């Protein structure tokens, strides 16, 4: 039963409730003739573990907040907490007018508006930590339709090109019951999360810094450069050293080396085994702070 609930929930993530009875009756603004040729903007995104395209956004200068690019949502939705942080307050008919709405990469969306709602889909994902990152809302039609957007999962940027001569048709009242079916799953999701005992952690810590550049030759990893003043230099690693293992992990490639130290925190000590001038050496490096 429970896993099904989770799956059903997951399947619903993209599609948000209809704005059933709330018309967006904002008068149409004439497109600005001055902005005849608008530039393309590259917007970095991340693919979450739930396969959502996540774009970081600053709202009213606060944030960044993690929003999902979602053509299945009619508008911008942000959680109550985000609204509070961004000092965004509901105005006419439940709409928030954002003073500024800027996507990472430098895309400033003019006259962006949105709605404040704790969507069950986001609550669910956050409660279980499914996305691998905390989600704060979605960017939907009212913003997306203003741009010609290029999506390519083989690139790490989305490309937004403003449709300067286009005024997207406004939202219209639809009647009907909206998306109550999904929203009513809220309590179920909370129960499931509590029952499974999942306590996600969205905190991050930097990996510790060694301070070497390496090169790979015949399945061997050699130190190409030791950065001046780095932990590697202090510990006594030398240019030309062949790194054979780190702690107990054998090193045949740069990938191995990165893997061995993937979760190494600042201040942790690591035993490097190297071959230098035909002799085996052991060097203990205390990782520093930096990148």
């Amino acid at each position, binding site marked *: 039963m429970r896993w*099904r609930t989770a799956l059903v929930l997951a399947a619903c993530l993209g*599609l948000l*409730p209809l704005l059933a009875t709330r018309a967006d009756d904002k008068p149409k603004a004439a497109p600005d003739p001055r902005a005849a040729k608008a530039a393309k903007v590259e917007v970095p995104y991340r693919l979450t573990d739930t*396969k959502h395209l996540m774009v970081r956004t600053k709202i009213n200068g606060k944030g960044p907040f993690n929003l999902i690019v979602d053509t299945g949502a009619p508008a911008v939705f942000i959680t109550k907490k985000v609204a509070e942080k961004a000092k965004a307050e509901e105005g006419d008919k439940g709409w928030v007018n954002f003073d500024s709405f800027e996507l990472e990469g430098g895309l400033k969306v003019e006259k962006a508006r949105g709605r404040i709602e704790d969507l069950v889909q986001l609550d669910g994902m956050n409660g279980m930590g499914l996305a691998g990152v905390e989600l704060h809302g979605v960017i939907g039609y009212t913003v997306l339709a203003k741009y010609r957007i290029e999506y390519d999962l083989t690139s790490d940027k989305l490309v937004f090109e403003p449709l300067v001569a286009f005024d997207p048709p406004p939202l219209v009242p639809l009647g009907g019951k909206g998306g109550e079916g999904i929203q009513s799953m809220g309590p179920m999701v909370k129960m499931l999360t509590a029952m499974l005992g999942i306590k996600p952690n969205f905190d991050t810590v930097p990996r510790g810094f060694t*301070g070497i550049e390496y090169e790979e030759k015949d399945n061997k990893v050699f130190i190409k450069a030791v950065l001046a003043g780095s932990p590697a230099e202090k510990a006594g690693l030398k240019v030309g050293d062949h790194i054979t293992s780190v702690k107990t992990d054998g090193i045949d490639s740069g990938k191995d080396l990165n893997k061995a130290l993937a979760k190494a925190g600042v201040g942790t000590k690591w035993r490097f085994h190297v071959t230098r001038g035909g002799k085996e050496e052991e060097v203990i490096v205390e990782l520093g702070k930096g990148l």
Partner: protein
Amino acid sequence: MKRAFALSLLAGLFALSPLAYSAPPEKEPLKPDEKPIVIPFELLKSRHMAIQVKINDKGPYRLIFDTGAPTNLVNNKVAKEAGLLEKGDKTAPLFGASMNAKTIKKLEIGGLKLEGMTTMVMDHPTVSAIAEAVGPVEGIVGFPFFARYKMTIDYEKKEMTLTPNGYIPGDAMAGMMEKLMGGASGKKAEPNVLAPAAVWGFDVYDRKKDDENPGVTVNSVLAKSPAALGGLKNGDRLLTLDGRWTDTVSDTFLAASLAKPGKAVALVVKRDGKELKLTVTPGKGL
């Protein structure tokens, strides 16, 4: 006890349905002469994008195109018509959801044909609600479809342009199940370690509590490091790294975790009140 029960249930079901959760194999490598395919879409009154889709030669059905959907989805009516259901298939009491993903032998959208696309079967309440408002809508097309293409969506022309990009979409459901199982320890998970993908040779520290200006402050730029060679200096306020905001130490490491060694990227810094764009090529290292 309840937890153990849920866990064993999860484990059992996960282990027993490997077929359902494995991603379809990528059959064809990318051809160099792939031409873009243009698919018109309808902008529904609900402001969703709708496309016409044939499933196993049945239809066309009107489905919603949704970049925020990690899976494809069709309702039970379509699943039955297109022969997606097998005898003895069990259905969850919730929204008539099928227990596992179904494979669509042949999916056609405009001039585009795909084999082996997976979908969930479920009477999604939001889809039903949309159908109630705008007429028949039978499901959702999402990530497993569009991730395979370089795709441009143009609301003005009401069309999307697709060119295969060779990307193999992973299985969102399998990933989530893994997460559910892995994370169910009852303890708070360890924080994620952000590992830079290359070596730069500098450090940053977080701005002070009362400092609301963007960026982090750069220090410890190491002599002759990639950062130094690119012109980065101690005291610079780093604003972005490869277009990504660097307002905290963790932002900076996140951006660096996505910047590949040997590839030149832009670092925007503020120095003496002026914004400068530096170009730095991080090295293969750590």
